[in-house]
């Protein structure tokens, strides 16, 4: 490549969405070879700070819709953010089996993302509060920067079980017996928005539409997200 001048499209994506977004962008670039999409995988808090301070992103995908709302308030994104899909919280227990309460009771450490800023962490915390009395889990929780770190801990065995995203489970091809879907946990909305200076960016507009189109929605589903429609 390089023969024809490609238009660059900078986008920023929540790191938990890396796998499906990579797949969707590959399709997009095949379909629209004039565009070269570069993706920064950034946690939502950083993403907000960066956009506020002049980041050149044309399109944002966040696992925290209300962070995007904040940007919308400041008129840094064009329109109200739109839902792209829903993530799903699961409990990963590769070495033990049983019901969730028993697993937590048996574990020394339960990994989850930091509830103060990571949506999967918030969801996990909410779930725990609803289902169990604090003394059953409070001393066992180990927090990660995000849901990926929660997964690392279970992966290396430092924590026996952990609250992770269904998309990660699919990504890692975890057998069904090793995780439990948490029906009562809320779904985690993933939102998409065009930034204020994406106006003249045709590529960004195209990608935005592509993301919301059926094909992409199917890809998201394949990666463990619930579709919006």
């Amino acid at each position, binding site marked *: 490549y390089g023969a024809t001048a490609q238009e660059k499209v900078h986008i920023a994506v929540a790191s938990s969405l890396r796998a499906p977004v990579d797949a969707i962008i590959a399709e997009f670039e095949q379909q629209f070879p004039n565009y070269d999409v570069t993706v920064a995988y950034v*946690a*939502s*808090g*950083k993403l*907000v*700070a960066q956009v506020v301070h002049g980041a050149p992103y044309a399109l944002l995908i966040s696992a925290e819709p209300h*962070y995007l709302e*904040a940007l919308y308030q400041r008129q840094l994104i064009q329109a109200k953010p739109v839902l792209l899909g829903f993530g799903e919280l699961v409990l990963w227990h590769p070495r033990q089996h049983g019901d969730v309460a028993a697993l937590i009771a048996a574990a020394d*450490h339960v*990994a989850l993302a*930091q509830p*103060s*800023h*990571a949506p999967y962490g918030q969801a996990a915390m909410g779930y725990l509060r609803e289902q169990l009395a604090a003394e059953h889990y409070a001393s066992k*929780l*180990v*927090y*990660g*920067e995000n849901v990926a*770190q929660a997964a*690392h*801990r279970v992966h*290396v*065995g*430092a*924590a026996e079980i952990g609250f992770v995203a269904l998309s990660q489970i699919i990504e890692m091809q975890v057998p069904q017996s090793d995780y439990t879907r948490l029906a009562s946990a809320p779904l985690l909305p993933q939102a998409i928005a065009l930034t204020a200076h994406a106006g003249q960016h045709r590529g960004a507009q195209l990608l935005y539409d592509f993301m919301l189109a059926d094909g992409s929605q199917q890809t998201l589903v394949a990666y463990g997200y619930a579709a919006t429609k």
Partner: protein
Amino acid sequence: MLQPSDYQAISLTLQLAAVTTAILLVLATPLAWWLAFTGSRWRGWVQAIVAMPLVLPPTVLGFYLLLALGPNGFIGATLESLGGRHLAFSFTGIVIGSVIYSLPFAVQPLTEAFRAMGKRPLLVAESLGATRWQALRTIALPLCRGGFVVAATLVFAHTLGEFGVILMIGGSIPGETQVLSVLIYDHTEALNYSAAHALSLGLIAVAVVVLAVVYGRRQPQ
């Protein structure tokens, strides 16, 4: 303005930094000594390996340390087989992580300080009846004071600010492994800027004053 959890984090952070600095000075001194004076052809390699913790991103280093220290890891498994507990998510674990991560900041300035001093003063001290250990304590330590100050302040300051390794190994458990840097990070991620600013400012103010006192006491040439 600060909450109890902040105070807990501050005290934990200072403990961690102090313990790490103390351990590193003890570990790094003989290692730096060997590096400064050995004629071994492995010297270059050892020195390079000591610098390794620097080239990996802290979270990645933390990942590998977690692997080693966790129950399935080499160190963790050994400990457990001996009836102990693995080291992930414990204060001991984050101390080990900090020690490994800051190793080069302690070893390298000390190595240079020893090299600059040379062996001569110690031999003279020994000829005056000092044991090797006394010579080290009464002569090498004060003569290499500059190197020790640099090593200690770099390690201390770096441990105050480090969070990638600690977060990974420690799991941010309040009162056990949730240090100030992790807390500040969490505040900024949660867009809770005023809390982040307050803690950062406090950290900086304390550090500036401590370091200015440490540095200010040294005489100029």
